[in-house]
């Protein structure tokens, strides 16, 4: 359990995030506002994905299987 190494790695990752989004040049209170906004948006996206994706995929699969399944039944009825 290399806690110190892990902490250093995480602080390096945070530094990269600051550089890439150009929050490095902002003052500390502006950085807090930006981080809060970004965190809120990411949380909302994750929550929406968690709540809605399983239901939607299940409905979509049912819809498509109903389409093709129905077609197979009708062709089978036609053939026989």
């Amino acid at each position: 359990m290399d806690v110190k190494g892990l902490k250093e790695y995480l602080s390096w990752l945070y530094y990269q995030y600051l550089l890439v989004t150009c929050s490095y040049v902002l003052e500390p209170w502006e950085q807090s506002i930006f981080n809060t906004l970004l965190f809120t948006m990411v949380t909302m996206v994750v929550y929406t994905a968690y709540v809605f994706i399983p239901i939607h995929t299940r409905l979509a699969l049912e819809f498509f299987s109903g389409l093709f399944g129905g077609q197979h039944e009708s062709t089978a009825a036609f053939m026989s």
Partner: protein
Amino acid sequence: MATTADLVSNGNIHRHNQNIDTFKSDAYVRSGFNSHCNKHNGKANGGLDKRPFKESFDQAPLYVAVLTYVGFGVVTLFGYFRDFLRACGLEKCYLAQEREEQKDFVPLYQDFENFYTRNLYMRVRDNWNRPICSLPGPQFDLVERVSDDYNWTFRNTGKIIKNVINMGSYNYLGFAENNASFLTTVEDTTRQYGVGVCSTRQEMGNLDIHNELEDLVAKFLGVEDSMTFGMGFATNSMNIPALVGKGCLILSDELNHTSLVLGARLSGSTIRVFKHNNLQSLEKLLRDAIVHGQPRTHRPWKKILILVEGIYSMEGSVVRLPEIVALKKKYKAYLYLDEAHSIGAVGQTGRGVTEYFGLDPSDVDVMMGTFTKSFGAAGGYIAGKKELVDFLRTHSHSSVYATSMSPPVAKQILRVLKCIMGQDGTTVGIQRVRQLTENVRYFRQRLQEMGFIIYGNEDSPVVPLLLYMPGKVGAFAREMLKKNIGVVVVGFPATPITESRARFCLSAAHTRGMLDKVLNTLDDLGDCLSLKYSRHKRSIQDRTLRRNSVLNH
């Protein structure tokens, strides 16, 4: 139909690998590395050693451009937010503001053009205008300053940061030195003539030192005559209006320096811009100009002047002089070559790009240069045929109205020229030129091995290292200063918005130890800030072989 590809230079016909394939000749060999991201140009020059002309302008991966725009977007949003707070009065405004009575007028200060300065430049501006308190040699001293209110005001702490390695000064041959034994002639001149000239060249400012200097400059460059001016910027901006005027055409490179652009605009001629170092673009413009003539009257142009620079200081690229000379001879245009960065820094004996390509100096109609960079002095010169220089002596604004060069400065240039030409009896000059070439090659090679994206020609002493993202620009300069290395970083208005860079200027005075220290710091910093974007990283085995071969030389 003859195209620019089949050029006759120095009596040999060369085939060039152009970066745009415009000719479908059977003899053209498709080389493997004409890939999408890399523009390599192989050409044998007419010079003695037939070195290939290698320039590269790699493109970074796409995510880098996207993230750069994201960074600028974030800063812009916060800029609007802070401007709103300042307008509301919730935040103190440090900028100049209009008085209450003027509020209904057209705004004087808080314009949109200043938006970028207010909201991005101010946040990182501690990396520019750093006060230097010593000679700008290979190492220098900086005044330490801090800011309590995020760079709106600075105060000196009283300490001095000593022996910072200087990677930003244009000290290519290392002649910015204060060794008393080298400067004895300059000291004697100051004792004899003083420092101020107190007159213009035409009135009483023409000293015998100026005539001696002009003769020596003409001899150095291999031309008939030359003329010197007190300021390099003024040489361009005041002499181009004397050479061309209304009814003439100026074809200027995209990335020309502001002094050339200003001179061209002041002259009143029509200006057309061709793409950087792109000969097809230039030829198309020349053909259109000759076929169609002046815009409405269709009369032929009085003169066509091509403005190019020897080395472009933001890109590190070298002008394609043999092709341009062939074009100008074919279409009977004139060529104005600004050798500000290349005089003294390229060429076997430091005589600039004409020597680098093995061309005759009389092929270039107007040779211009400055003494600020390789000569450690100040001022500029224009050289060429005697008729041209005699004309400029009477018709140029700079020669008639501007104060002439100060005597110690003129003497410094004389001493340096004699040193480079070997006339002082030593080989110091030519050793410095060789040392610079070696330093340039070593530095560029090591940086490319490490995986950075470097622009420009392999032989140019100006090395731009691409940083791309605005956050990294400030972080890079600050971290380098913490490690005692002073660099110049350049951002948006001077470069395209996605291509911010750090620009290194190498010097003959840099020792191998200093360069190694800088390179090792760059290696660490490149990993820490993740700047190694190049897709052409060499393998470790190749790197070891290359390092051994460099050591063996």
